[in-house]
């Protein structure tokens, strides 16, 4: 099944890229822009038909490699249940 992992900087950790993009948007006149957080999206194709089991495995992958829990949060979404 297809799984999407979205990784963002934890709120307590500085995000210079997000801050710069927010400033850029405000410079363009988008005064309504508050905080901006940059992140990365990882698309995974995972063999298996049990969404819970797949979620558990991907969660482990996030903790071990895909995200750094010291600075990042992640959200896992099963996009296409088998």
């Amino acid at each position, binding site marked *: 099944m297809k799984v999407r992992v979205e990784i963002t900087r934890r709120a307590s950790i500085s995000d210079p*890229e997000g801050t710069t993009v927010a400033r850029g948007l405000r410079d363009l006149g988008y005064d309504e822009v508050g905080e901006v957080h940059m992140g990365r999206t990882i698309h995974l194709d995972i063999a298996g038909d049990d969404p819970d089991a797949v979620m558990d495995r991907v969660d482990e992958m996030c903790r071990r490699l895909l995200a750094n829990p*010291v600075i990042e949060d992640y959200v896992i979404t099963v996009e296409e249940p088998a």
Partner: protein
Amino acid sequence: MTQRVAVVVFPGTNCEHDVVHALDLLGVDARLVFHKETSLDGFAGVVLPGGFAHGDYLRTGAIARFSPIMTEVARFAEIGRPVLGICNGFQILCEAGLLPGALVENRDLRFVCRPIHLRVESTGSVLTGSAAVGDVLEIPLNSYEGNYVADTDVLDELERTGGVVLRYCDPGGDVSDAANPNGAARSIAGVARGSVAGLMPHPERAVEAILGSADGLSLLRSFVDSLTPSRV
């Protein structure tokens, strides 16, 4: 007896020869060890040099921490044998959990490559044991992800335990936002825990007058002085 130090080479490491040269100057038998090796038997200490291990893919140091040699590096940390990470090596040690915190992109989103000043904050580490608190050193910085971050409680704990070993400062030794080249939390340039230390600047590039500064010797000499005779 001449001490033997391992200088680990990952795919993408590019400062290993400079580190070997600097350690040679200090009378150490420094040897390159490929990251696929699984033993550091006979080495009294290990250095993870700078570069772009595994192309910095995913995050700096994220892939390198799973290299076979890292099990041995972790064992060295556990038994109290000196481990030093310089620049990318520091990033790897943080990713591996051998040092607290992480390194993220510089505050101004610019690669910083110039000599900067550092103030020695604590001498209870393998990186600063032979220096003096308050020493100001001029050493090159060369990084994009050099911005040290950690949670407030982690930073407080580091401060309390002498784990903050180097801070960015101006030539007079004053720490300020203006003298902080990359936005690092509390101007932290180097940290230590147990026998493990890491720093973003490159002491190996400041070891001879012809390089513009020999201040890096003070840090590398501390590392060498912390070595105990090689044993298995």
